[in-house]
């Protein structure tokens, strides 16, 4: 297979801690700055709460907690709003990058030694000049944590 006919997709890249991730651009609705989050008592860890996006309720997911990445304090956060299962979710990340084209033949399989949540979330890895870009599956990013050991 040549690079020309390998199916290409575009991903929105964002950084959590020091790691860059990419999610399919078609799943991303918008990127917004910090909004007030209403905590939801008793919610599973990793669920930061609800935010009010122009009258719509959005479930905010704390990716630091979900991916077990230590949080650096006092860093402004961004929300990557994704639509999944006809519901809106906000992925709370540290920084949003650009939209990168990823062709299928540059995506390498997830290393086997990835631990826990990461191996469940990542569908592949792309080598870039700036470092590795982990391609994440949005649905698993949202729903997996409860089954995490």
């Amino acid at each position, binding site marked *: 297979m040549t690079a020309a006919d390998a199916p290409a997709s575009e991903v929105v890249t964002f950084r959590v801690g020091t790691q860059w991730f990419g999610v399919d651009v078609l799943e991303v609705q918008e990127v917004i700055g910090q909004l*007030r989050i*209403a905590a939801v*008592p*008793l919610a599973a860890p990793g669920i930061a709460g609800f935010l*009010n996006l*122009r009258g719509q309720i959005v479930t905010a997911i704390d990716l630091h907690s979900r991916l077990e990445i230590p949080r650096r304090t006092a860093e402004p956060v961004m929300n990557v709003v994704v639509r999944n299962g006809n519901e809106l979710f906000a992925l709370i990340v540290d920084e949003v990058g650009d939209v990168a084209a990823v062709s299928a033949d540059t995506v390498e399989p997830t290393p086997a030694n990835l631990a826990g949540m990461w191996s469940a979330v990542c569908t592949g890895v792309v080598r870039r000049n700036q470092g590795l870009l982990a391609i994440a599956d949005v649905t698993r990013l949202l729903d997996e944590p409860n089954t995490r050991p």
Partner: protein
Amino acid sequence: MDDLLKDFLAESTENLAQLDHDLVELERDPSNASLVNSIFRAIHTIKGTCGFLGLPRLENVSHTAESVLDRLRDGSLKADAALISDILRSIDVIRLIFAGLEVNGVEPVGDDSLLVALLDQWLADGRHTYQRAAPDPAQHPPVDTSSLMAAKPSNPSHDTSLPSNVSLRVNITLLDSLMNLAGELVLSRNELLEMASRDEDSRFAAPVQQLSRVTAELQSAIMKTRMQPVGSAWGKLPRIVRDIARETGKKIELDMKGAGTELDRQLVQALQDPFTHMVRNSADHGIESPEVRRSRGKPAVGRIVLNAYHEAGHVIVEIIDDGNGLDVVEVRATAIERGLVRREVADGMTDSEILNFIFEPGFSTATSVTHISGRGVGMDVVRSNIERVGGAVELHSVGGQGCLVRVRLPLTLAIVSSLIVRARGELFAFPQASVMQLIRLSEEQLARFDTLNNALLYRLRDDLIPVVNLADALKLAGDDTDAVSTLVICQAGASRFGIIVNDVEDTQEIVVKPVGRLIRSVGCYAGCTILGDGRVVMIIDPAALAVRTGTQMASATEKSDSPAVTAPVASDCMLLFGSGAGAVQAVQLSRVARLEEIPADRIEFAGGTPVVQYRGGLLPLVPANSSVTLTAGHSHAVIVFNEGSASFGIAVGDIRDIVDEIVNLELVSTRPGILGTAVIAGAATEVLDVSYYMARARGAQIS
């Protein structure tokens, strides 16, 4: 225009359209008797009603047409093209009269003598002779159109009455999205209102008020578009009842009243299964066979009545049958057998409380064989389905005479009036429907909380109700800097409980938004909403919260295997004593042999068990709880029990009182050694399970 006339017009306009079609069909197929019949009936209905409404011109034309149709029916006239044309002419005239009625509310003036004469010719001769003279409705001037036009501005109701039966099919998803948008508009409106209220002489105040009014009207209009008659959830029922009747050889009549009562379609959908279930129950288990019914002096045909109506902003739906009813004795026995309630608790319950057990999960199982079993299968599902949509269900039954299930439903799900409360600095909403009462707690009342094994109890008049602190139940972070000040008494199903909050902020009509799938599993939220300041607030589902925190007045599932426990606790002298740990406990005086004060130095230990030499034998002692230390102190209050030939003593803190009082166990305990909790002498009191201590004393003796 009066409503009767409006309805008549709407209905007739529909019928007329059908008439045209039928007549054309008849022309092609003149021998089709059922077509003739249907045409005749339609005209007959118009004639009958216009006589009733006082419309002589319309009556005259339709009467003549009807007479001709009657001859068609009995076969003395044949439906040829000429006859059909004449009937169509008369229908055209009828339609013109309707047009006039619709605009002016009165019959237009006109002369129909030609048309009538024409039709009369058919009646007399079987044909019509003066074709040339036949009035062509196109030229016939029954209504002067210029007067119609002139009449329009003078009649403001014209716009609503003219398209009397215009309706449009709209996709449900479009309606749902309209509803959502209106909800969001309401939220924005609330935000604006709040901003405007901060600045009294804002120049936005007036337009915001206007916007607010329009928004409210828009929302209620959209809500109306989603209303569906409750009857649409009943569609399958006649067939189900008929099938059951055939299978079981019963005779059952199903009567559905108030099928036009409207509810939000989401509710109608949610209710389909519960209704089907309850009607099936009534038909299958409620109504008796014709022989049994006759022997009981009832009519052989059993009746199931569905009745829906509005009452105080709610919709009530009743399912009534005149069958067997529920047997309270059997329900009680089954509830005890299934471990839903202890016998001594059941004895103190009223019939209606007993009947409510059929709504309990696990009341009936597929393997049960009692003939009331069918009633209970799935009634827990019925109740939870109804409560999920904010409704309530109650059941009344008279043994042998029938059963009534009353379902109370809100008109819509989308908006609920709610109570906004604050707990540890966070805001939450409670649906008003489940809030029974608010109690502002004074310092003195705060002290009235009784604690049992860390569970809070509140004395509400004569009842003991479990209480939970909302902030604790939700594991809210932070400190209780605010004073605890309000107790929200909630009712869910048959149980009542209190929820402590810091403050009640407000009551508000809120738009319920569903919580996302990741939050749904938490289970204690009915949804969330956005307040005027843009803040997202969770709506508490009190019933789910109660289940989660275990405060429900549920009966203990633990089954008692000790026969001694079956002695009823009721109307008895009770001995009250201090447990030694601060709480007041009680035991039935009739079971007490003696009270003794035993000096600590007389207590000996035999194989690790405390005993005391007593009346020539050894009396084993059991501390009432771990806070009673037998080796410490000067002396101990001991309650001595005789069980058969064996005696034993329970060492307690101190003896308090003897009261003669009817004792009802309010809460059944799951803790060993405690039967439950009762209000005795005005205080929450644990009633000791003597047989538990006896077993411990015996065990001690054996070892």
